[in-house]
C-alpha cells in the first residue's frame, strides 16, 4: 500500500468556484497532489473536461458532486450515481446515500460544523444522526485548519470512531480559489495501481490520514 496526497473537495466555474478546470488541475499539480475529486455544487458538468486536463498534467481526477442541500452538504465521489439533488431531504437522505453507494459511489459528510443558515445555507450538518451509519467518510477538518469549527468536527469524528462507526477521516479544503491560509491534505493508502476505483476502495476501507502537507506530518490517522 502506498499513500498518495489528495484534495477531495474542489470547485470550478461550473458552480461557484473561480478556477477553470485547467486552473484547478494546475493548482493541484503545484500543490504536489497526486489527485483531486471534483465536487462542484449540484452539478457534474465539469467532470469530463477536468478528467482530460488531469490526464494532461498527471493528476488523477475522481468524478464527483457536492449535494448542496438545505440541510447539509455531502460530497459524492465516483461519478456512478445520478441522484437528483433537489429530491434529497432530511427525511430521505439515508435512502439517497444508500442509492449512491449501491451505484458504486462514496459519500462524505462535508464541513459538518460550517457556520450555517443564513451565512451559508446547509453549510452546517442538520441531517438526522442516523446518517453516520451510511456514510463512508467524514470531513474531520475543513478549509483553513485554524477555523474554530474544526475543533468540533475533529471532536465529533473521534467520538463517532469511539462509538464504532466505520468512517474514514478526510480533509476538505472546499477549494474554490487560491488564497492565503493553513491547509491540510488527505493522504489515501492505495493498494495496487493509482486509479479511481482503488482510491474509492481505500476510502471505503478507512485507509486515509490527514496530514499538514503532501508527505507531511499526520494530524489525524
Amino acid at each position, binding site marked *: 500500500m502506498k499513500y498518495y496526497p489528495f484534495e477531495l473537495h474542489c470547485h470550478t466555474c461550473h458552480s461557484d468556484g473561480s478556477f477553470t478546470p485547467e486552473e484547478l488541475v494546475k493548482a493541484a499539480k503545484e500543490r504536489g497532489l497526486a489527485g483531486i475529486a471534483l465536487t462542484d455544487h449540484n452539478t457534474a*458538468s465539469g467532470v469530463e473536461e477536468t478528467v482530460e486536463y488531469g490526464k494532461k498534467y498527471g493528476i488523477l481526477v475522481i468524478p464527483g458532486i457536492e449535494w*448542496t442541500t438545505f440541510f447539509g452538504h455531502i460530497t459524492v465521489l465516483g461519478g456512478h450515481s445520478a441522484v*437528483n439533488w433537489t429530491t434529497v431531504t432530511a427525511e430521505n437522505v439515508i435512502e439517497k446515500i444508500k442509492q449512491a453507494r449501491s451505484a458504486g459511489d462514496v459519500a462524505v459528510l462535508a464541513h459538518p460544523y460550517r457556520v450555517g443558515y443564513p451565512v451559508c*445555507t446547509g453549510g452546517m450538518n442538520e441531517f438526522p444522526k442516523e446518517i453516520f451509519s451510511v456514510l463512508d467518510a467524514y470531513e474531520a477538518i475543513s478549509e483553513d485548519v485554524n477555523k474554530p469549527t474544526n475543533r468540533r468536527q475533529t471532536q465529533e469524528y473521534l467520538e463517532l470512531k469511539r462509538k464504532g462507526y466505520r468512517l474514514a477521516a478526510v480533509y476538505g479544503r472546499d477549494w474554490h480559489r487560491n488564497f492565503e491560509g493553513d491547509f491540510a491534505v488527505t493522504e489515501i493508502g492505495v493498494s495496487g495501481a493509482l486509479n479511481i476505483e482503488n482510491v474509492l476502495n481505500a476510502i471505503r476501507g478507512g485507509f486515509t490520514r490527514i496530514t499538514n502537507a503532501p508527505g507531511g506530518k499526520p494530524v489525524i490517522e
Partner: protein
Amino acid sequence: MKTLLKTEGRIGKEDLHTHIRIPFEIPEGIDEITVHYSYAPKKYFGEDAFSLAYAAFKRSYPSDEPIQKAVVERELPLNNHITFSLEKDGVLLGTAHRHSPDNVFKIAEKEASYGFYPQKLTPGTYFAVLSVHAVLETVEYSLEVIS
C-alpha cells in the same frame, strides 16, 4: 425567436428551503434555449442581520470559543440565494449554483453554460426549478426561456 416561458413572481420567507417547479413546453425542432433568470434584492440589510448571523456562528462554534464581532460583520450583508436548475422527467439537466442574481444560460446539444449538460432538447414538458437556499425578505424574480 420564440418565447417558451415568461413569468415573474414573488418568493417569501414561507418558501425557504423549498424547490419551486415551473413547467414549460419545448416543442419539436428546438436546437437551443436561452434562459434569462434574475431576482432582487440580493443583499439583505435588515436590522436583524447581525443577530441572525451571530446566531449561526453560535450554533457552529465550540461553546468556549469567543465570537468576535468583526468576524460576524465580515459576513454582512447577508444574501438571498435562489438557484436555477433545469429538469425533465425527474432527471436534472443541470444546475447553476451561482451567487449572481442576474443570469443568462444557454443549453444546446453541443454546448451549454457552466453547470448544465449539453443535450439534445427532445420535445416535452420541462421544469425550471428555483431552489430557495436563502430568503430573508420577499424577493421578486423574473424568468424567461426563449429559443
